[in-house]
């Protein structure tokens, strides 16, 4: 299996605090790579570096295409999603609450629609070529809504959905930009066991059907152990373990980091 993402010697310092310390790991295509660790281990900081919200102090992050690789450091802000096709979700859900579910999914297809609407010119003239493109975008939204079973609520405000549905909607909204790498920040936080199981199913579907690499930060071990192909464990910004889910479960270092050392 080919590498999708390689993080090399990533270091992020905030003043005197080193949030990430010389971190290197790889994530592969069509795999779910989980990043776990106690609170404050630097997991979200890794995401913020990858998705261009922070500029790392040191180190490189590469996204591999067929034969070439692109450096994620070069892209900041919206270009990470637009050019490098790295999508993310947030620890605290960030939907557009006063907009409808369908509109949320259309905003994710903004850039294609913007070109199709001739930067609004064709759209204002209501040309057929724009209307067709818009219909395609709606069809894509419907495809994803069918998968998460929210089609009947497409016209309701996103803020009115139950919490679990909002989580799922945020994930499919990120999928609407057709990402190569999907970064999920605690997608199972606040979900009940039934909803967690549905989430696992959705993530497996994205992994196998959509050929998208997934990077996952998660505290819910039923999710992590159930679906991860590869686990990276962080503590105080350092990688302390890397391996499969089963290896992680039995690793001495990981147990020590979570439960403390026996005196």
């Amino acid at each position, binding site marked *: 299996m080919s590498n999708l993402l390689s993080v090399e010697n990533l270091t992020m310092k905030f003043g005197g605090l080193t949030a990430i310390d010389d971190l290197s790991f790889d994530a592969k295509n069509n795999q779910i790579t989980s990043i776990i660790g106690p609170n404050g281990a630097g997991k979200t900081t890794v995401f913020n570096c990858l998705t261009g919200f922070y500029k790392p102090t040191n180190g490189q992050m590469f996204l591999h295409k067929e034969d070439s690789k692109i450096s994620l450091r070069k892209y900041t802000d*919206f270009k990470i999603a637009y050019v490098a096709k790295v999508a993310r979700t*947030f620890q605290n859900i960030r939907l557009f609450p*006063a907009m*409808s579910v369908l509109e949320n999914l*259309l*905003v*994710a297809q903004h850039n294609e629609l913007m070109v199709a609407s001739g930067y609004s010119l064709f759209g204002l003239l209501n040309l057929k070529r724009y209307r067709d493109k*818009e219909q395609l975008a709606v069809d894509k939204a419907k495809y994803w809504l069918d998968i998460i079973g929210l089609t009947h609520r497409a016209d309701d405000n996103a803020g009115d959905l139950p919490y679990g549905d909002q989580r799922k909607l945020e994930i499919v909204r990120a999928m609407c930009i057709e990402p190569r790498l999907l970064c999920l920040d605690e997608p199972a936080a606040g979900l009940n066991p039934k909803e967690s199981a549905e989430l696992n199913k959705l993530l497996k579907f994205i992994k196998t059907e959509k050929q998208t690499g997934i990077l996952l930060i998660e505290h819910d071990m039923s999710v992590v152990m159930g679906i991860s192909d590869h686990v990276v464990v962080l503590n105080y910004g350092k990688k302390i373990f890397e391996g499969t889910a089963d290896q992680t479960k039995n690793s001495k270092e990981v147990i020590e980091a979570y439960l403390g050392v026996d005196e």
Partner: protein
Amino acid sequence: MEKKDIIQSFKDSLFTGLIALALFGPIVGLRTVSKGEGLFITPQWGVVFLLVGLCILGRFLININSARRTEFKIFSILSSKFSNVTEDKAKHFAITGILFAVVFPFLPFTDRYFMDVAIMILTYIMLGWGLNIVVGLAGLLDLGYVAFYAVGAYSYALIATTFGWSFWICLPLAGVFAAFFGILLGFPVLRLRGDYLAIVTLGFGEIIRIILINWYEVTNGPDGITGIPRPSFFGLPFKRSPDEGETSFHLFFNLEYSTMHRIIFLYYLILVLALITNYFTLKIRKLPVGRAWEALREDEIACKSLGVNPTNTKLTAFAIGAMFGGFAGSFFATRQAFISPESFTFIESAIIVAIVVLGGMGSQTGVVLASIFLIGITEMFRDLEQYRMIAFGGAMVLIMVFKPKGILANRKPTIFMHGDKK
């Protein structure tokens, strides 16, 4: 309702009266009159007691009303009726409104004064619709919108007086200039949000006004620009006796000369301009850029994570909002035939923002209702001179009490999957 409640609300009303007395006593009660050699204080206790009495009575009635069961509350019944009518029949309302606006100049009771007020209200509606793009859709609180109004007015005035070009050429130019200033303001404030953005835009509005006052060589400073050409009816001027080789409007159509012709023409001009603004906004709201504006208002970080370019999105909102402000400005210049920096003070920006916020952020019909309500009430109380601002403030308070989210607060999605149910 129990007796205890009544006694309680009576006590509460008396306390309200006390506060009213403390406020009105010195403000209204002691009036200074300048007579010959000095300033004298004339007490007006009668007026004070009347006002205090009104406050006590009003408070008592409000208390009694709120003590009743919810379904009998007068105000909630009134306000729910009002919102039902406007929400369900927004389209009917819009069509009736436009029809009424079209026939308005020919109604029997319409006189010069009504026409002037109507033109003023329409100007504010247009400004409100323009600002609605920036504040209502993109969520960028702009307290200096009057700057674009001023840029539009001065561009029109300067081009028209210097080059003598016609209104129809100057109008788009004024819009382009205003849009350019919109982008100029947009760049430095890209990173700002909320309160900080409001302060900078407020400063921008003042900067433009102060430049207009001090750049004497170009803008003629505080004296303003006079003799701005009036618009013509497709080349036919509204003059009693046209120049040699020219035909004027009333001669061409074989009508008796009347100054009302020009007023009616101006009325239709601003009506059309305002409707174009409205049509454009309704259209663009349903396009990707419009959705991006609203998404930006909802959550900028989420927008970035989806690849929406916040810089371009904000700048287009500023530029398009400013452009309509510029159109309205050039209309203002041609109507008045005289402009000076006096007309572009902060209070204008405040009124426009108030119209947008009170109308319900992002609601086009709300802007119309709020303009009619605010400007209409202020005009109705014009005889009270400086006290009419109390009526303006009172109108705002009334809307905020009964409609805290604005007159029409509900937002309709821009696109439906299952069809529009209503």
